Protein backbone atom coordinates (compact mmCIF):
# COMPACT_ATOMS: atom_id res chain seq x y z
CA UNK A 1 0.00 0.00 0.00
CA UNK A 2 2.92 2.35 0.72
CA UNK A 3 5.22 3.51 -2.07
CA UNK A 4 9.01 3.27 -1.72
CA UNK A 5 9.39 6.82 -0.41
CA UNK A 6 6.66 6.29 2.19
CA UNK A 7 8.17 2.98 3.21
CA UNK A 8 11.52 4.67 3.86
CA UNK A 9 9.76 7.34 5.89
CA UNK A 10 7.86 4.68 7.85
CA UNK A 11 11.16 2.92 8.62
CA UNK A 12 12.60 6.20 9.94
CA UNK A 13 9.59 6.79 12.19
CA UNK A 14 9.73 3.22 13.48
CA UNK A 15 13.40 3.65 14.37
CA UNK A 16 12.68 6.88 16.23
CA UNK A 17 9.76 5.20 18.02
CA UNK A 18 11.93 2.23 18.99
CA UNK A 19 14.57 4.56 20.46
CA UNK A 20 12.02 6.27 22.69
CA UNK A 21 10.21 3.03 23.53
CA UNK A 22 13.49 1.54 24.77
CA UNK A 23 13.57 4.19 27.51
CA UNK A 24 10.06 3.36 28.79
CA UNK A 25 9.80 1.83 32.26
CA UNK A 26 6.24 0.59 31.69
CA UNK A 27 4.07 -0.31 28.69
CA UNK A 28 2.19 2.60 27.11
CA UNK A 29 -1.42 2.09 26.04
CA UNK A 30 -2.44 4.37 23.17
CA UNK A 31 -6.11 4.55 22.24
CA UNK A 32 -7.16 5.56 18.75
CA UNK A 33 -10.53 7.27 18.87
CA UNK A 34 -11.61 7.03 15.25
CA UNK A 35 -12.76 4.06 13.20
CA UNK A 36 -10.81 5.31 10.19
CA UNK A 37 -7.62 5.09 12.30
CA UNK A 38 -8.61 1.58 13.40
CA UNK A 39 -8.85 0.56 9.74
CA UNK A 40 -5.57 2.27 8.77
CA UNK A 41 -3.71 0.63 11.69
CA UNK A 42 -5.01 -2.84 10.80
CA UNK A 43 -4.54 -2.33 7.05
CA UNK A 44 -0.88 -1.34 7.45
CA UNK A 45 -0.16 -3.94 10.11
CA UNK A 46 1.11 -1.21 12.47
CA UNK A 47 0.34 -3.23 15.61
CA UNK A 48 2.82 -5.89 14.57
CA UNK A 49 5.51 -3.34 13.61
CA UNK A 50 5.53 -1.47 16.92
CA UNK A 51 7.67 -2.43 19.92
CA UNK A 52 5.90 -4.72 22.41
CA UNK A 53 5.87 -1.96 25.04
CA UNK A 54 3.37 0.03 22.94
CA UNK A 55 -0.20 -1.21 22.80
CA UNK A 56 -2.73 0.28 20.40
CA UNK A 57 -6.30 0.07 21.71
CA UNK A 58 -9.38 0.78 19.60
CA UNK A 59 -11.83 3.13 21.28
CA UNK A 60 -15.49 4.07 20.85
CA UNK A 61 -14.69 5.99 17.69
CA UNK A 62 -17.33 4.78 15.29
CA UNK A 63 -20.74 6.43 15.69
CA UNK A 64 -22.43 3.40 14.14
CA UNK A 65 -20.82 1.04 16.66
CA UNK A 66 -21.92 3.06 19.67
CA UNK A 67 -25.55 3.50 18.58
CA UNK A 68 -27.72 1.84 21.20
CA UNK A 69 -29.91 -1.11 20.20
CA UNK A 70 -33.02 0.66 21.53
CA UNK A 71 -32.31 3.61 19.21
CA UNK A 72 -32.13 1.29 16.19
CA UNK A 73 -35.45 -0.26 17.27
CA UNK A 74 -37.02 3.19 17.60
CA UNK A 75 -35.93 4.08 14.05
CA UNK A 76 -37.36 0.82 12.75
CA UNK A 77 -40.75 1.44 14.38
CA UNK A 78 -40.74 4.96 13.03
CA UNK A 79 -40.05 3.72 9.50
CA UNK A 80 -42.90 1.20 9.79
CA UNK A 81 -45.48 3.97 10.27
CA UNK A 82 -47.55 4.85 7.20
CA UNK A 83 -46.66 8.18 5.60
CA UNK A 84 -43.09 8.22 6.93
CA UNK A 85 -39.93 7.78 4.88
CA UNK A 86 -36.81 7.25 6.99
CA UNK A 87 -33.69 8.64 5.31
CA UNK A 88 -30.39 7.33 6.63
CA UNK A 89 -26.70 7.00 5.85
CA UNK A 90 -25.95 3.52 4.51
CA UNK A 91 -23.63 2.81 7.47
CA UNK A 92 -26.59 2.32 9.77
CA UNK A 93 -28.54 -0.18 7.65
CA UNK A 94 -27.04 -3.43 8.92
CA UNK A 95 -26.61 -2.54 12.59
CA UNK A 96 -28.64 -4.99 14.68
CA UNK A 97 -31.08 -3.66 17.24
CA UNK A 98 -33.10 -5.92 19.52
CA UNK A 99 -35.64 -6.37 16.72
CA UNK A 100 -33.38 -6.73 13.72
CA UNK A 101 -31.77 -4.13 11.47
CA UNK A 102 -33.04 -1.31 9.28
CA UNK A 103 -32.10 -3.47 6.30
CA UNK A 104 -34.36 -6.27 7.51
CA UNK A 105 -37.13 -3.75 8.24
CA UNK A 106 -36.81 -2.38 4.71
CA UNK A 107 -37.03 -5.90 3.26
CA UNK A 108 -40.17 -6.30 5.38
CA UNK A 109 -41.79 -3.25 3.78
CA UNK A 110 -40.67 -0.32 5.95
CA UNK A 111 -40.04 2.83 3.94
CA UNK A 112 -36.29 3.43 4.33
CA UNK A 113 -34.08 5.28 1.87
CA UNK A 114 -30.28 5.41 1.97
CA UNK A 115 -28.89 8.86 1.27
CA UNK A 116 -25.34 10.14 0.76
CA UNK A 117 -25.94 13.47 2.49
CA UNK A 118 -28.63 15.52 4.21
CA UNK A 119 -28.92 17.48 0.94
CA UNK A 120 -30.37 14.29 -0.58
CA UNK A 121 -32.75 13.89 2.36
CA UNK A 122 -34.03 17.46 1.96
CA UNK A 123 -34.43 16.89 -1.80
CA UNK A 124 -36.42 13.73 -1.02
CA UNK A 125 -38.80 15.78 1.16
CA UNK A 126 -39.17 18.40 -1.58
CA UNK A 127 -39.90 15.71 -4.19
CA UNK A 128 -42.61 13.94 -2.15
CA UNK A 129 -44.60 16.55 -0.24
CA UNK A 130 -47.19 13.92 0.79
CA UNK A 131 -44.54 11.94 2.70
CA UNK A 132 -42.90 12.91 6.00
CA UNK A 133 -39.16 12.46 5.54
CA UNK A 134 -37.31 11.77 8.81
CA UNK A 135 -33.54 11.86 8.70
CA UNK A 136 -31.76 9.51 11.13
CA UNK A 137 -29.21 11.92 12.57
CA UNK A 138 -26.19 9.84 13.44
CA UNK A 139 -22.57 10.84 13.73
CA UNK A 140 -20.08 12.79 15.81
CA UNK A 141 -19.15 16.47 15.56
CA UNK A 142 -17.89 15.94 11.99
CA UNK A 143 -21.35 15.04 10.75
CA UNK A 144 -23.72 16.96 13.04
CA UNK A 145 -23.02 20.38 11.40
CA UNK A 146 -24.15 18.98 8.01
CA UNK A 147 -27.41 17.97 9.69
CA UNK A 148 -27.73 21.45 11.21
CA UNK A 149 -27.43 22.93 7.70
CA UNK A 150 -30.29 20.69 6.51
CA UNK A 151 -32.51 22.02 9.32
CA UNK A 152 -31.58 25.57 8.34
CA UNK A 153 -32.50 24.82 4.72
CA UNK A 154 -35.83 23.27 5.73
CA UNK A 155 -36.61 26.21 8.03
CA UNK A 156 -35.74 28.75 5.33
CA UNK A 157 -37.87 26.96 2.75
CA UNK A 158 -40.74 26.37 5.20
CA UNK A 159 -40.38 22.67 4.44
CA UNK A 160 -42.80 21.03 6.90
CA UNK A 161 -42.33 17.42 5.84
CA UNK A 162 -38.64 17.21 6.78
CA UNK A 163 -37.38 16.50 10.29
CA UNK A 164 -34.41 14.98 12.10
CA UNK A 165 -34.39 12.22 14.74
CA UNK A 166 -31.12 13.17 16.38
CA UNK A 167 -28.86 10.47 17.77
CA UNK A 168 -25.77 12.66 17.46
CA UNK A 169 -23.02 12.17 19.99
CA UNK A 170 -19.97 14.16 21.02
CA UNK A 171 -16.52 12.68 21.51
CA UNK A 172 -14.90 14.58 24.45
CA UNK A 173 -17.36 13.39 27.18
CA UNK A 174 -16.80 9.76 26.14
CA UNK A 175 -13.02 10.19 26.49
CA UNK A 176 -13.53 11.58 29.99
CA UNK A 177 -15.62 8.53 30.93
CA UNK A 178 -12.84 6.22 29.70
CA UNK A 179 -10.21 8.18 31.65
CA UNK A 180 -12.35 7.92 34.80
CA UNK A 181 -12.98 4.17 34.41
CA UNK A 182 -10.67 2.32 36.86
CA UNK A 183 -10.72 -0.77 34.62
CA UNK A 184 -9.44 1.09 31.58
CA UNK A 185 -5.77 1.99 31.37
CA UNK A 186 -5.13 4.60 28.72
CA UNK A 187 -1.85 6.51 28.63
CA UNK A 188 -2.44 8.59 25.50
CA UNK A 189 -4.94 9.33 22.75
CA UNK A 190 -4.63 9.41 18.98
CA UNK A 191 -7.35 12.00 18.43
CA UNK A 192 -9.92 11.75 15.64
CA UNK A 193 -8.69 13.85 12.72
CA UNK A 194 -11.94 15.05 11.22
CA UNK A 195 -13.79 15.54 14.52
CA UNK A 196 -10.93 17.95 15.30
CA UNK A 197 -11.24 19.58 11.86
CA UNK A 198 -14.55 20.85 13.26
CA UNK A 199 -13.79 21.18 17.00
CA UNK A 200 -10.11 22.14 16.98
CA UNK A 201 -8.08 21.29 20.07
CA UNK A 202 -9.77 23.22 22.89
CA UNK A 203 -12.47 20.63 23.82
CA UNK A 204 -9.68 18.07 24.37
CA UNK A 205 -7.43 20.22 26.58
CA UNK A 206 -8.72 18.52 29.73
CA UNK A 207 -6.90 15.34 28.70
CA UNK A 208 -3.53 17.11 28.87
CA UNK A 209 -4.45 19.55 31.65
CA UNK A 210 -6.47 17.50 34.13
CA UNK A 211 -5.26 13.99 33.34
CA UNK A 212 -1.71 14.77 32.18
CA UNK A 213 -1.88 12.49 29.17
CA UNK A 214 -0.55 13.11 25.67
CA UNK A 215 -3.10 13.70 22.95
CA UNK A 216 -2.25 14.03 19.24
CA UNK A 217 -4.70 14.99 16.48
CA UNK A 218 -3.72 12.59 13.73
CA UNK A 219 -4.13 12.09 9.97
CA UNK A 220 -5.08 8.81 8.37
CA UNK A 221 -2.01 7.60 6.49
CA UNK A 222 0.40 5.10 8.02
CA UNK A 223 3.12 7.73 8.41
CA UNK A 224 0.67 10.17 10.02
CA UNK A 225 -0.09 7.56 12.66
CA UNK A 226 3.58 6.66 13.20
CA UNK A 227 4.52 10.33 13.54
CA UNK A 228 1.70 10.78 16.07
CA UNK A 229 2.94 7.82 18.11
CA UNK A 230 6.44 9.36 18.11
CA UNK A 231 4.92 12.72 19.21
CA UNK A 232 3.09 10.92 22.04
CA UNK A 233 6.33 9.29 23.22
CA UNK A 234 8.12 12.65 23.04
CA UNK A 235 5.47 14.23 25.29
CA UNK A 236 5.81 11.24 27.59
CA UNK A 237 9.61 11.58 27.71
CA UNK A 238 9.53 15.34 28.36
CA UNK A 239 6.59 14.98 30.76
CA UNK A 240 4.94 17.92 28.99
CA UNK A 241 1.39 17.22 28.01
CA UNK A 242 -0.53 18.99 25.27
CA UNK A 243 -3.12 18.50 22.56
CA UNK A 244 -0.70 18.52 19.63
CA UNK A 245 -1.69 18.55 15.96
CA UNK A 246 0.04 16.14 13.62
CA UNK A 247 -2.73 16.44 10.98
CA UNK A 248 -1.87 20.05 10.12
CA UNK A 249 -3.15 19.81 6.56
CA UNK A 250 -6.75 19.50 7.75
CA UNK A 251 -6.88 20.75 11.34
CA UNK A 252 -6.46 24.21 12.80
CA UNK A 253 -6.30 24.79 16.55
CA UNK A 254 -9.55 26.77 16.43
CA UNK A 255 -11.31 24.13 14.31
CA UNK A 256 -13.97 25.35 11.89
CA UNK A 257 -15.68 28.25 13.73
CA UNK A 258 -18.59 28.36 11.25
CA UNK A 259 -19.34 24.67 11.81
CA UNK A 260 -19.01 25.13 15.59
CA UNK A 261 -21.58 27.93 15.50
CA UNK A 262 -23.94 25.65 13.56
CA UNK A 263 -23.56 23.07 16.35
CA UNK A 264 -24.25 25.71 19.00
CA UNK A 265 -27.25 27.25 17.23
CA UNK A 266 -29.07 24.13 16.10
CA UNK A 267 -28.43 21.68 18.94
CA UNK A 268 -28.60 21.54 22.70
CA UNK A 269 -26.48 19.20 24.78
CA UNK A 270 -28.22 16.27 26.46
CA UNK A 271 -27.34 12.87 27.89
CA UNK A 272 -26.87 10.01 25.44
CA UNK A 273 -26.84 6.24 25.68
CA UNK A 274 -23.73 4.68 24.12
CA UNK A 275 -23.68 1.02 23.28
CA UNK A 276 -21.01 -0.54 25.48
CA UNK A 277 -20.51 2.56 27.62
CA UNK A 278 -24.03 3.31 28.90
CA UNK A 279 -25.47 6.75 29.53
CA UNK A 280 -22.86 9.50 29.30
CA UNK A 281 -24.01 12.86 30.68
CA UNK A 282 -23.80 15.74 28.22
CA UNK A 283 -22.62 13.57 25.32
CA UNK A 284 -25.65 13.84 23.03
CA UNK A 285 -27.01 16.53 20.76
CA UNK A 286 -30.76 17.17 20.58
CA UNK A 287 -32.37 19.67 18.17
CA UNK A 288 -32.53 23.11 19.82
CA UNK A 289 -36.00 24.29 20.97
CA UNK A 290 -35.93 27.12 18.39
CA UNK A 291 -36.00 24.42 15.68
CA UNK A 292 -38.48 22.09 17.43
CA UNK A 293 -40.64 22.11 14.27
CA UNK A 294 -37.90 20.09 12.58
CA UNK A 295 -37.33 17.77 15.53
CA UNK A 296 -38.84 14.39 14.60
CA UNK A 297 -39.22 13.52 18.30
CA UNK A 298 -41.65 16.44 18.66
CA UNK A 299 -43.61 15.33 15.63
CA UNK A 300 -43.79 11.56 15.93
CA UNK A 301 -43.95 8.95 18.63
CA UNK A 302 -42.02 5.75 18.19
CA UNK A 303 -43.81 3.25 20.44
CA UNK A 304 -41.52 1.57 22.93
CA UNK A 305 -40.39 -1.91 22.20
CA UNK A 306 -42.31 -4.67 23.92
CA UNK A 307 -40.66 -7.54 22.13
CA UNK A 308 -37.19 -8.35 23.40
CA UNK A 309 -35.20 -11.16 21.98
CA UNK A 310 -34.42 -13.64 24.80
CA UNK A 311 -30.79 -13.04 25.70
CA UNK A 312 -29.88 -16.75 25.78
CA UNK A 313 -30.67 -16.99 22.05
CA UNK A 314 -27.91 -14.49 21.25
CA UNK A 315 -24.29 -15.52 20.83
CA UNK A 316 -21.87 -13.85 23.29
CA UNK A 317 -20.66 -10.42 22.18
CA UNK A 318 -17.77 -8.47 23.70
CA UNK A 319 -18.39 -5.27 21.72
CA UNK A 320 -18.92 -3.33 24.96
CA UNK A 321 -15.48 -4.28 26.33
CA UNK A 322 -13.88 -3.88 22.90
CA UNK A 323 -15.22 -0.31 22.58
CA UNK A 324 -13.51 0.53 25.88
CA UNK A 325 -10.21 -1.03 24.83
CA UNK A 326 -10.54 -3.69 27.57
CA UNK A 327 -10.61 -6.62 25.15
CA UNK A 328 -9.40 -7.15 21.62
CA UNK A 329 -11.67 -8.77 19.02
CA UNK A 330 -9.48 -11.89 19.15
CA UNK A 331 -10.58 -12.43 22.76
CA UNK A 332 -14.28 -12.65 21.83
CA UNK A 333 -15.55 -16.26 21.57
CA UNK A 334 -17.91 -15.28 18.73
CA UNK A 335 -15.29 -13.44 16.63
CA UNK A 336 -14.70 -15.15 13.29
CA UNK A 337 -16.88 -18.11 14.32
CA UNK A 338 -20.54 -17.10 14.56
CA UNK A 339 -19.77 -13.39 14.16
CA UNK A 340 -18.43 -12.43 10.72
CA UNK A 341 -19.00 -9.40 8.47
CA UNK A 342 -21.66 -11.40 6.63
CA UNK A 343 -23.46 -12.44 9.82
CA UNK A 344 -22.46 -9.85 12.39
CA UNK A 345 -23.54 -10.28 16.00
CA UNK A 346 -22.33 -6.93 17.31
CA UNK A 347 -21.87 -3.46 15.88
CA UNK A 348 -18.04 -3.62 15.82
CA UNK A 349 -18.35 -6.29 13.13
CA UNK A 350 -21.15 -4.51 11.23
CA UNK A 351 -19.43 -1.24 10.59
CA UNK A 352 -16.55 -1.34 8.11
CA UNK A 353 -14.73 0.88 10.59
CA UNK A 354 -15.48 -1.28 13.60
CA UNK A 355 -12.54 -2.87 15.40
CA UNK A 356 -13.82 -6.42 14.77
CA UNK A 357 -14.36 -5.84 11.04
CA UNK A 358 -10.88 -4.31 10.73
CA UNK A 359 -9.26 -7.23 12.59
CA UNK A 360 -11.26 -9.74 10.55
CA UNK A 361 -10.23 -8.23 7.25
CA UNK A 362 -6.55 -7.60 7.89
CA UNK A 363 -5.40 -10.21 10.37
CA UNK A 364 -6.27 -13.55 8.79
CA UNK A 365 -3.05 -15.16 10.08
CA UNK A 366 -4.09 -14.57 13.69
CA UNK A 367 -7.54 -15.90 12.90
CA UNK A 368 -6.14 -19.15 11.59
CA UNK A 369 -4.07 -19.79 14.69
CA UNK A 370 -7.04 -19.47 17.00
Amino acid at each position, binding site marked *: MLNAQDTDKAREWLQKIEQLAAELDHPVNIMEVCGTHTVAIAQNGLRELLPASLRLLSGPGCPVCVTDEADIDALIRLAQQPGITLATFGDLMRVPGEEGSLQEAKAGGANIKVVYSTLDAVALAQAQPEQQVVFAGIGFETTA*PTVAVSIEMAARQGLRNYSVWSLHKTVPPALRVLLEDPEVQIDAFINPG*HVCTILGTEPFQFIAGEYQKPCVVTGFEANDILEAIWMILEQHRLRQWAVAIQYR*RAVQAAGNPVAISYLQNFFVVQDANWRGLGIIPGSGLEIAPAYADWNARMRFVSPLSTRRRPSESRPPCLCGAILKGLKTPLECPSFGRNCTP*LRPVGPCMVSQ*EGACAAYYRYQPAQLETR
Partner: protein
Amino acid sequence: MCLAVPARVVEINGDLATVDIVGNTRAIGISLTPEVQPGDYVLVHAGFAIQVIDEAEAQATMMLLEEMALLEAETEGWQQEGNSA
Protein backbone atom coordinates in the same frame (compact mmCIF):
# COMPACT_ATOMS: atom_id res chain seq x y z
CA MET B 1 -17.82 7.21 9.26
CA CYS B 2 -16.00 10.53 9.72
CA LEU B 3 -14.17 9.94 6.45
CA ALA B 4 -13.52 13.10 4.44
CA VAL B 5 -12.06 13.36 0.97
CA PRO B 6 -10.36 16.23 -0.86
CA ALA B 7 -12.07 17.86 -3.82
CA ARG B 8 -11.48 20.84 -6.11
CA VAL B 9 -14.23 23.48 -6.28
CA VAL B 10 -15.26 24.03 -9.91
CA GLU B 11 -18.24 26.36 -9.60
CA ILE B 12 -20.21 28.03 -6.84
CA ASN B 13 -23.97 28.43 -6.88
CA GLY B 14 -25.31 29.96 -3.67
CA ASP B 15 -25.00 27.44 -0.81
CA LEU B 16 -23.91 24.73 -3.23
CA ALA B 17 -20.78 24.08 -5.24
CA THR B 18 -19.84 21.72 -8.03
CA VAL B 19 -16.65 19.91 -7.08
CA ASP B 20 -14.26 17.53 -8.79
CA ILE B 21 -13.40 14.49 -6.66
CA VAL B 22 -10.65 12.60 -8.50
CA GLY B 23 -12.38 13.04 -11.86
CA ASN B 24 -16.01 12.76 -10.70
CA THR B 25 -18.11 15.89 -10.40
CA ARG B 26 -20.83 16.29 -7.82
CA ALA B 27 -22.79 18.97 -5.98
CA ILE B 28 -21.91 19.59 -2.36
CA GLY B 29 -23.02 22.03 0.32
CA ILE B 30 -20.64 24.86 1.24
CA SER B 31 -22.52 26.48 4.15
CA LEU B 32 -19.79 25.33 6.57
CA THR B 33 -17.03 26.95 4.46
CA PRO B 34 -18.64 30.19 3.20
CA GLU B 35 -15.23 31.64 2.28
CA VAL B 36 -14.58 29.05 -0.42
CA GLN B 37 -13.76 30.18 -3.99
CA PRO B 38 -13.67 28.36 -7.34
CA GLY B 39 -10.29 26.65 -7.70
CA ASP B 40 -9.97 26.08 -3.93
CA TYR B 41 -9.50 22.60 -2.52
CA VAL B 42 -11.83 21.46 0.24
CA LEU B 43 -12.29 18.41 2.46
CA VAL B 44 -15.71 16.86 1.77
CA HIS B 45 -17.61 14.90 4.41
CA ALA B 46 -21.17 13.58 3.93
CA GLY B 47 -21.80 15.90 0.99
CA PHE B 48 -20.46 19.08 2.62
CA ALA B 49 -17.16 20.94 2.52
CA ILE B 50 -15.91 20.98 6.12
CA GLN B 51 -12.55 22.75 5.63
CA VAL B 52 -10.61 24.60 2.96
CA ILE B 53 -7.19 23.01 2.45
CA ASP B 54 -4.28 23.94 0.22
CA GLU B 55 -3.49 22.15 -3.02
CA ALA B 56 -0.38 20.35 -1.82
CA GLU B 57 -2.30 19.17 1.22
CA ALA B 58 -5.10 17.95 -1.02
CA GLN B 59 -2.64 15.89 -3.10
CA ALA B 60 -1.28 14.30 0.07
CA THR B 61 -4.75 13.22 1.06
CA MET B 62 -5.71 11.93 -2.41
CA MET B 63 -3.69 8.81 -1.66
CA LEU B 64 -6.01 7.84 1.15
CA LEU B 65 -8.96 8.17 -1.20
CA GLU B 66 -7.37 5.77 -3.66
CA GLU B 67 -6.68 3.35 -0.84
CA MET B 68 -10.32 3.54 0.25
CA ALA B 69 -11.44 2.83 -3.33
CA LEU B 70 -9.21 -0.25 -3.30
CA LEU B 71 -10.62 -1.19 0.07
CA GLU B 72 -14.15 -1.00 -1.26
CA ALA B 73 -13.34 -3.13 -4.30
CA GLU B 74 -11.71 -5.62 -1.97
CA THR B 75 -14.73 -5.67 0.34
CA GLU B 76 -17.05 -6.36 -2.57
CA GLY B 77 -14.95 -9.33 -3.60
CA TRP B 78 -14.86 -10.53 -0.05
CA GLN B 79 -18.65 -10.27 0.36
CA GLN B 80 -19.24 -12.11 -2.92
CA GLU B 81 -16.86 -14.78 -1.76
CA GLY B 82 -18.81 -15.07 1.45
CA ASN B 83 -22.13 -15.21 -0.39
CA SER B 84 -21.05 -18.09 -2.54
CA ALA B 85 -19.70 -20.03 0.44
